[in-house]
């Protein structure tokens, strides 16, 4: 199954843009600011959540329109069965609400996830290995939630309990021991579930990545470095025993909020942060594809890859395209020029995007 008969109405700079007769590879070529990423963002709304820019609904509504937008597409089965028509829109009369329709019936945004899996990679994620450990934890949690929605609840509960405990630690008075017990019990329960979710995610990604050849595409080796005891009971004990030290420090020093995702490039055995921009990009792509394969679980997979070819040399680009072919996923790729896509040009649908309009050029 793949997305086809796509239409964008009043979506950012696209007044009325359509994409028909799509292929496994779909290329959007154009200058900076032409509206290529806007198309990927529109498609990313076929997943629950806020899309690939995490933007507000009002931001996505086109300036020329009346404050609403609509994105629609058909999910076409390869076996010739009936297509499923998906649409998501904001009615200008109800600007704060994103409506979803599946085969013309009202549906929830979550139910989109029953039909297809979407994954994306944007240049905004390029600095992941150089960024703070906190950014990598948020990244891990986003990936973990895609595999297990309950993970989100543990993240939220853990963070809320942590804020409460840190406030008690920094208070003028000695924290009430029973109050600390109550918070630590919840920190331990949700922290163990949170750490367990991250560890399971990384183990699954490791298995998936281990099946890939180490060359020519950089293969990342992931490891989970826990920030505290993994099980609930030892974590609760560590928190209780650390109170005096943590009161002096003014914050909680043990637990999954101190977790780290360690990434090393195989072969070179160099930490990802020390690798070249291109190698880092290749490793990010590898993780994104491995996670997408895990998260799809039998659903048709659509990959939105924004500017992925730019940092890769021809050899690695070819390896990426090869891998995308084997994934079976429908891929949407953007770029400022066509030549980097030469190896897949024959089997791709190509559009030139300019000033919010798209014209087929293949």
């Amino acid at each position: 199954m793949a997305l086809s008969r796509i239409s964008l109405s009043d979506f950012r700079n696209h007044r009325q843009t359509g994409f028909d007769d799509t292929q496994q590879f779909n290329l959007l070529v154009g200058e900076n600011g032409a509206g290529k990423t806007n198309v990927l963002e529109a498609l990313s709304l076929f997943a629950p959540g806020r899309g690939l820019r995490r933007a507000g609904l009002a931001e996505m509504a086109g300036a020329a329109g009346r404050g609403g937008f609509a994105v629609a597409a058909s999910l076409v089965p390869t076996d010739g069965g009936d297509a499923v028509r998906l649409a998501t829109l904001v009615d200008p009369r109800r600007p704060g609400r994103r409506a979803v329709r599946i085969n013309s019936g009202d549906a929830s945004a979550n139910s989109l996830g029953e039909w297809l899996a979407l994954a994306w990679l944007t240049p905004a994620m390029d600095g992941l290995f150089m960024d703070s450990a906190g950014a990598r934890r948020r990244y891990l949690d986003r990936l973990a939630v895609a595999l297990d929605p309950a993970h989100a609840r543990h993240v939220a509960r853990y963070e809320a309990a942590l804020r409460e405990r840190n406030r008690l630690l920094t208070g003028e008075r000695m924290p009430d021991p029973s109050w600390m017990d109550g918070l630590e019990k919840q920190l331990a329960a949700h922290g163990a579930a949170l750490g367990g979710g991250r560890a399971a995610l990384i183990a699954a990604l490791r298995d998936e990545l281990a099946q890939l050849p180490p060359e020519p595409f950089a293969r990342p080796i992931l490891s989970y470095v826990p920030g505290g005891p993994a099980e609930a009971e030892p974590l609760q004990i560590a928190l209780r025993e650390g109170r005096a030290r943590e009161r002096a420090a003014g914050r909680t020093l043990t637990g999954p909020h101190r977790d780290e995702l360690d990434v090393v490039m195989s072969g070179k055995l160099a930490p990802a942060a020390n690798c070249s921009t291109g190698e880092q990009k290749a490793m990010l792509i590898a993780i994104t594809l491995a996670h997408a394969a895990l998260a799809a679980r039998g659903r048709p997979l659509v990959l939105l890859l924004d500017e992925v070819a730019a940092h890769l040399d021809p050899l690695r680009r070819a390896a990426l395209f090869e891998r995308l072919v084997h994934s079976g996923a429908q891929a949407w790729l953007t770029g400022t020029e066509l030549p980097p896509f030469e190896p897949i040009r024959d089997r791709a649908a190509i559009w030139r995007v300019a000033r919010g309009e798209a014209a087929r050029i293949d």
Partner: protein
Amino acid sequence: MASQEIERLAQALARLPGLGPRSARRAVLWLVKRRETSLVQLLDALADVRERLVECTTCGNVDTSDPCAICSDPRRDAKAICVVEDVADLWALDRAKLFTGTYHVLGGKLSALDGVRPEDLNIARLLARVEAGGVDEVVLAMNATLEGQTTAHYLAERLEEFPVRITQLAHGLPVGGELDYLDEGTLAQALRARRPVG
């Protein structure tokens, strides 16, 4: 520009939960137009509340008598105390008419971020009630939020020293709920809290 009187009333109303300056001004205008009818009724009702309502010194409930109607009802089982965060929770539970014991209203929940400490809650009086004897069971009916559950853990620990049974409301499958639509966290709770049939 609204007159000083209107502004003053609007500012007072704006602090009510769920209102805000804009809704408050709308309410004031509505009342001004009905000065002889609705406004008079409201004034009477407010004066009644101010004069007659008191907080029950036993349980913290709000009523026209102290002790409140629940605490002084001889048909109520004084051996069981159900602890709730707020009076609204007491009303919700009592609407169901299932709990035959008495209540205890904490007046909030522990929250370090909001600056609500144990001594800000009606906890000392709860401990005194239990310590005085004659209580077999304390039901902790806190909300299933982080703060609610922290408060429940806190109370459970403080009540440990007394010979009472400490229980908690069950978490899990809502009545009329469909498994297919429940999140994994709720399902896990429901499974953990499963019990023999019949």
